[in-house]
Every structure is written in structure tokens, then in C-alpha cells.
């Protein structure tokens, strides 16, 4: 019997529907893969970064011996300030672990507490000279190795040669732990100090201030210029003019130029030609504002375009000039959209790293920048710098800095969404 066409189609239907379902599934799977990656990324970084918000402190009973320091209660501020307090710390540690003999172990013993302990002690004594001659308990910042071990990130079962922390050091730390001399505290230093070679002392304040200054320069340059350009292109530019066409093509192209090329521009033009100081938020802001201009211009143009022409015509009808119409009516109505675009552009600039490497913002800067011409670094560059450091404690801090950066970005994007939701008008 000959099969009719209908039968053929009917027979193939099952297969075709299966194909349909499979195709649909592929789509779902692709979305799921992206989501999964995002989730893994965020969870991974959070797990790595969260411990950095706590820091181990060691309690030492320090006898502030006037003879060792060569000062007394009546010494002037200068003398108190310049005395060598690290000797006292070392002596205290030696007293606590009297059976330490070999040179190697003695050196290791000093590294139980961070070298900032001496400065902390100095500050305490300078603030209150009456401490001299007394014995007092202080909580000092632990060295990064102690901190990493206390957080359980060193595997004791590993062979001793493969560990950074040796058996005798582990014994000390265990003893400290047993005596209740180890404590985890909120790591406020992470937010209040600049970069440091010592992981336990390194903080992101310098980078945050640098980012803030750079963003201020970027915003104050790119916002007015972008709005001016967008208004010109939408409201005043003659249509079908070659110059205007070239500008439009240029803006669209610039939006897709790799960011590193802007870094080359900054190096050759701003630094080498105009002599703007290297590594400063000023030059960083200049480069980033050129980079964000296209984003803001494109968003602003869309916002201005969406204002209906009836508004403009009403203003013209009342005798307003073109400029008056634009500045009194069109621009205020387009402002939410423009601000949304600006925030998104600034978020982009905040996360940008590559062009800033070109203009020398990778230098190690421990001080917190005071102005836009001081050498400084920014958050993403700080992340890059720390990620290069071999110490385990820096990995932790890198992740924590990433969390802070992502936090800022989330807040900015959330703000943009809020702006759009609350003020955007559908005409």
C-alpha cells in the first residue's frame, strides 16, 4: 500500500516535535550555563574574600621597660616617638617562648606579630607616657602567616617542607591559641589604610580615595561634554550634513575601540605632550572620560530623542527660542535617561583597568592621595596588583577588594534602575 503524504507527515511528527523540544532545551541550557558561571564566580569570590574582613590579633603582655627604651615618663614627645619599640616586642615574645635558641627560630619568632606592633605600641606610649614602667596587655596585629593558619587555610597534614609555616611555628600558634591569646576581630584596617608590602597591614583606602578622585575628574569632564554633544547632535545639528555624519560614525566607533588604546592615547598625548603628572587621578580621569564619552552620548541622545516633539512645538508656539526650548523643556524631561546613561558609563569607568596601567597608575602607592595630582592607584588596579602577589593573605584581600568593587558597581546599577523606574516617562 502506498503511503499518502499525510501519513508521511504524521509519521515524522513525533521526530519533529522531539527536535522542537530539544532546540528549546538548548536555549534554556545556554542561559543556565551563563547563570551557573555567574553564580560560581560570585560564590567563589565571596568564599575567598569573606575571611579577609576578619583579622587575627595576638595578645601580648608587654612590659614597657624604661631602661630598654632609654626614655622615662618625663621625656619629651620627640624622644618618646623615636624610641625603638620593636626591641620590647621581641623581648616579650622571647619571654613567652624561652626555649627558642637557633637563629632561624628567633627570626621566625619575631614574625608572629606584624611589624606594625611596634608602631601601635609607640602610639599608645606617646599618647599616655604613664604606661612606661608598667606591664600591660595589648592586642597586636598578627603576621599574615599566623592569620592564614588561624583561619584554617593551612593544611597541617602537608609535609613540612611544602608549608610556609613550619612545625615549630605551628606549635607556637597552638600555644597562643590555648592561652586565649588569639582573637579574630573585624578588619577595620582594611578600610582605613593604604597599600602595604605586608599583607596584614594592606588596606584599600588609598585605592578607594584614588578611585573617588578619578571618578570626580571623569564625571566633571564627561557629563557636561557628553550632554552638550548629545544636545547638539539631536537638536541643533543640520540633517544630512557630512560633518555631522562623520561625528556620528566617530562616536559609534569610539564606543568599540579597545580601552587599552585609550591608555596609549593618554600616555602619548596627556603625559608625553602636555606634561600632565603620571600616575595621578587627573590623567586617569582624562583618559576615562574620553572612554566613557561615547556611552553617555549614545544614552543621552536616546533620552532626548524620546521626548515627543509636541513639547518642543508648544514651547515654540509660546515664543521660546530653540535654545530656550531645549534648556527649559527638552533637557529637563530627558534628564532621567541622561543620568541613567551617565551612571552606567561611570560604573564602566570605575571597573576599568587596562588604560590606567598605561599611564602609570600601577605604581606602589602606600600613601592616601590628597589631591588629583598626587600619585595614586584605583580599586581595579589595586586588585590587579594584589592578584600578582604570591602570599596567601593577598589572595584573600584581592577577593575582598573585588567584593567591595562589585558592591559599588551593584549600588550604582541599582541607582540607575531606580532612576529609570521612577522618573522615566512613557509618552
Amino acid at each position, binding site marked *: 500500500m502506498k503511503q499518502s503524504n499525510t501519513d508521511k507527515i504524521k509519521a515524522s511528527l513525533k521526530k519533529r516535535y522531539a*527536535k*522542537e523540544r530539544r*532546540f*528549546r532545551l538548548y*536555549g*534554556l*541550557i*545556554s*542561559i543556565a550555563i*551563563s547563570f551557573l*558561571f555567574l553564580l560560581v*564566580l560570585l560564590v*567563589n*569570590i565571596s568564599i575567598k574574600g569573606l575571611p579577609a574582613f576578619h583579622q587575627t590579633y595576638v595578645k601580648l603582655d608587654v612590659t614597657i621597660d624604661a631602661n630598654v627604651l632609654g626614655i622615662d615618663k618625663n621625656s619629651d614627645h620627640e624622644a618618646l616617638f623615636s624610641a625603638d619599640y620593636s626591641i620590647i616586642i621581641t623581648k616579650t615574645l622571647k619571654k613567652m617562648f624561652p626555649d627558642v635558641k637557633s637563629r632561624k627560630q628567633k627570626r621566625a619568632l619575631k614574625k608572629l606579630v606584624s611589624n606594625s606592633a611596634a608602631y601601635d605600641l609607640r602610639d599608645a606610649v606617646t599618647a599616655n607616657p604613664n604606661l612606661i614602667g608598667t606591664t600591660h596587655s595589648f592586642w597586636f596585629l598578627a603576621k599574615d602567616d599566623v592569620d592564614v593558619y588561624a583561619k584554617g587555610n593551612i593544611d597541617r597534614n602537608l609535609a613540612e617542607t611544602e608549608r610556609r609555616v613550619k612545625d615549630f611555628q605551628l606549635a607556637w600558634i597552638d600555644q597562643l591559641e590555648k592561652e586565649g591569646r588569639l582573637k579574630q576581630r573585624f578588619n577595620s584596617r582594611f578600610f582605613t589604610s593604604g597599600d602595604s608590602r605586608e599583607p596584614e597591614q594592606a588596606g584599600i583606602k588609598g585605592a578607594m580615595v584614588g578611585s573617588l578622585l578619578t571618578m570626580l575628574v571623569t564625571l566633571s569632564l564627561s557629563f557636561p*561634554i*557628553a550632554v*552638550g*554633544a548629545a*544636545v*547638539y*547632535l539631536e537638536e*541643533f545639528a543640520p540633517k544630512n550634513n557630512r560633518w555631522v555624519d562623520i*561625528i556620528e560614525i*566617530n562616536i*559609534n*566607533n569610539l564606543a*568599540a*575601540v*579597545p580601552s*587599552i*588604546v585609550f591608555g*596609549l*592615547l593618554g*600616555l*602619548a*598625548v596627556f603625559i608625553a605632550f*602636555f*606634561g600632565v603628572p603620571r600616575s595621578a587621578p587627573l590623567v586617569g580621569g582624562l583618559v576615562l572620560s*574620553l572612554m566613557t*564619552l*561615547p556611552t553617555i*552620548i549614545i544614552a543621552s541622545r536616546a533620552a532626548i530623542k524620546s521626548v515627543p516633539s509636541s513639547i518642543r512645538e508648544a514651547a515654540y508656539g509660546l515664543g521660546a527660542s*530653540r*535654545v530656550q526650548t531645549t534648556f527649559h523643556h527638552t533637557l529637563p524631561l530627558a534628564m532621567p535617561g541622561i543620568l541613567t546613561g551617565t551612571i552606567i558609563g561611570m560604573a564602566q569607568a*570605575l*571597573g*576599568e583597568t*587596562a588604560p590606567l*596601567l*598605561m599611564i*602609570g597608575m*600601577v605604581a606602589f602607592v602606600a600613601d592616601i592621595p590628597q589631591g588629583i595630582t598626587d600619585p595614586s592607584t584605583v580599586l*581595579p*588596579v589595586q*586588585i*590587579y596588583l594584589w*592578584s600578582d602577589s604570591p602570599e596567601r593573605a593577598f*589572595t584573600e584581600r584581592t577577593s575582598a577588594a573585588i567584593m567591595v*568593587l562589585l558592591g559599588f*558597581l551593584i549600588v550604582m546599577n541599582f541607582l540607575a534602575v531606580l532612576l529609570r523606574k521612577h522618573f522615566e516617562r512613557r509618552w
Partner: protein
Amino acid sequence: MPIKFLLITLLALLLFGYFIGRKRSLALKANNGGAKKTLHSLPKYYGFLVSLWAGIPALIILLLWTAFDTTIITSMTVSQLPEQTQQLSQDELGLLMNEIINLSQADKISDVSANDAKMLIKQTAANNFARFSHISNLAKTVLVLVMALMGLLLGLRYIRAETRARNYVETAIKLTMMGCASIAILTTFGIIFSVLLESLQFFKAVPITEFLFGTTWSPQTAIRPDQVGSSGSFGALPLFVGTLLIAFIAMLVAVPLGLMSAIYLSEYASQKVRTVVKPILEILAGIPTVVYGFFAALTVAPVIRDMGESMGFHPASESALAAGLVMGVMIIPFVSSLSDDVLSAVPQAMRDGSYGMGATKSETIKKVVIPAALPGIVAGILLAASRAIGETMIVVMAAGLAAKMTVNPMEAVTTVTVQIVTLLTGDQEFDSPKTLAAFALGLGLFMVTLILNVISLHVVRKYREQYE
């Protein structure tokens, strides 16, 4: 006067100009009250006109002066140096000038009594530099303020009832906005000139054919000329291969995943799902690349190394695969949002026609929608590819530095962007071939991405017109 105070003074002058201009015009109106003559513009426009007159010339002078004073003062100081010092090479002279500038800032008044001849030269030059800077600063302050005052007086003369103040002010505003728009062109020119000039200088030292087709890349130039391999070799072919390899891996990840996501979102998903899923996908594009780089280097690369080893390969710890995979994920949202746009632009009538013939949804998508949207999709992919080629941080952190000619994704390769970063970070002289090589690489990168962008933007535009 420090620039801060100069600017504040200038601002005060502008405000003063505005108020006095406004007041004068109001006075004019009161005087003319009896006659039938009225002001052409609102009083505030007269105020603006006066401040424009006061501000624009002064600001232009201030800007030009600040932009060029360091260069001019430096060359003046150099010309005061003894003859034999002036004969030094460009690099040495630059170093010397840096020292001199530092010296002049360190302590302004130092006696020139040092018996060391070299020190004496430096100290004299530093004093000269300080003196010139002082004179320049003084002249700048005086000139700017005089210009502002003269402009103000000139502006006041324009306050007459028949002056078309509003029109003047509006023309100024329009010109300013036009200037803002032209900055895009200036930027492009700036990019082209900065990379082109340095590249030309580089190609004088290294022939362009060697740069494009040479197969060894080792830019380490020796400090002393008699050292072995002092010239360095600048064959960039391995970099191009490495860049393309990583970009290719990235596209292998991004194109299927991005395209399928876009198809699902635009053809299958309900409005509700779209509004939730799309922003979450966009988050992937919003994460800074340095974060991806960190993730690729510390999490993905070890996983790949372990997996490769268990399968019998021996991947390098910084394999092209890790960087490519992570970069691919980063690009997914670009591909998906661009494809989403073009897929939604395909007219519904075409789909309905296909359904009418009895095709299933997936058949319609494969046979009708995608072919119709193909130019747009290709353009989107090109744009994403240009993004992958220009991406820097992921490869800097997760790909290697060794310039190896290989297409094996398990090996470490290096890319153009990685080399630009390595050549330019750290302190070296601006004119060394190493630095110049970075600009030549930048030129190549800019040209390739520009071509990709121009093609894709053109295709997208043509495509839009087709269905509008």
C-alpha cells in the same frame, strides 16, 4: 598665584560681570521707560553676554599657557645649559632635566657654592628653572586677569537696547555644544596621531615586514650596546597568532551560547521571563574584566590543568584555554543582546507565513528567522570578536608572557594586548624601541578593531533599513 586662586578670582569676575551687565540693562530699561524703546533681550542675557566677554578670552589664554608652559620653560632652561651639556643625547638630557626640576622644587633658594662642577651646573639650571617658572606664573596671572577685565569693559559697551544679546549668547552656547560634539573627532585624531607617529619612528628602526612576518618576539633590549642580543627582535607574528587563538576560543564559547540564549529569549520566553533573565545576563557584561582575570587565573586555570593532566595532556599553568573560556563567558551578553535586537526586528509576518505552512517553531527559527537576521547576527559576532581581540585584563592575568607560535590551546600563548601592557608598565624612556614597539602593536590593534567595527556597524545599518 596658584591656579586655584586664579580660577576663583576669574569666577568672581565672571559673576561680577553678570550682575553688572544685568543691572546696566535694567537701568537702561528704566531710563527708556518714557520712550517706546524696549530692550531686545531679557536682562539676564545682557549679564551673560558680559561674562562671556570677560571669560572666554581669559580662559583660552589660561588653557594655552598652562598646556605649554612646562615645555617652553624646559627648553629655555636647556638653552641656558653649558654647550657640552646640550650636546647630550635626548634620553640623558631628559634625565638631567628631571633631576633639575626635582632640585628646583626641593629647595627654592640654595646657594650656588657647590664645588662639584656637575652639581654646580645642575644647581644653576634648577635656579634658572625656578626663576622662569616664577616669571611665567606671574605673567600668566597678570595676563589672564587683564584679559578678563578688558573683556568685561568691552562687554559693558555692548549693553544697548538694540543689542541682540540673546542671539549672541545662544550662538555661543551652540558653538560650545558643537565643540563638545567635535571632541569625538579630536579623540579619534588623537589616537591615530599618537599611535601612528610613534609607530613610524619604530618602523624606522625595525622594518615593517620584519614586524609583521617575523616569528621571534623578544623585546628585551640590552642596556649596554656590546651585550649579546642587544637589538631585541620584534617579529609580532606569534602575538597575532596567540591573540587570534584566544579570541577564537572565546568566540567558540560565546557564539553558540549567546545566540541560543538570544533565540530562547526573543522567540520562546514570556515577557515576564525576559524582564528577569535579561538584566541578569547583562550583569556578566558589567563585571569588571580584572575580576574575570582573577577568576580565570586562580580558579579556572588550575581546574583546567588538573583536568588536562588526568586526561593525559600536560597543559601549561597559564593555558590559552583558561583565558579563552572566561573571555567567552564575558562576551556572551554582547552576542546575546545584539542578536536579540536583530531577531526581534524580523517582521512577525515572516514567522506567520512559515507557521501557516505547518512548520514548527524551531523549524521557523532555523529556516526563516535566522537566515533573515543573518547579516545582523554576523555583524554582532564581528563586534564581539573585536571586543575579544582588544580585551586586556583577562589575558594579562591568565595568559602567559612567552611568545610561542602555536595553536595548541593547552599551551601558554601571549597576545598583543599583554605585550603592550608589559612593554609600557614600569619605567623606561619614552623613545626606546621597546616603548615604541608597544605603540606599533597598538596601531595594529586599533586598525583591526576599527575595520571590524566599521564593517559591522555598516552591516547593521543596512540591515535595519531592509526591514523598516
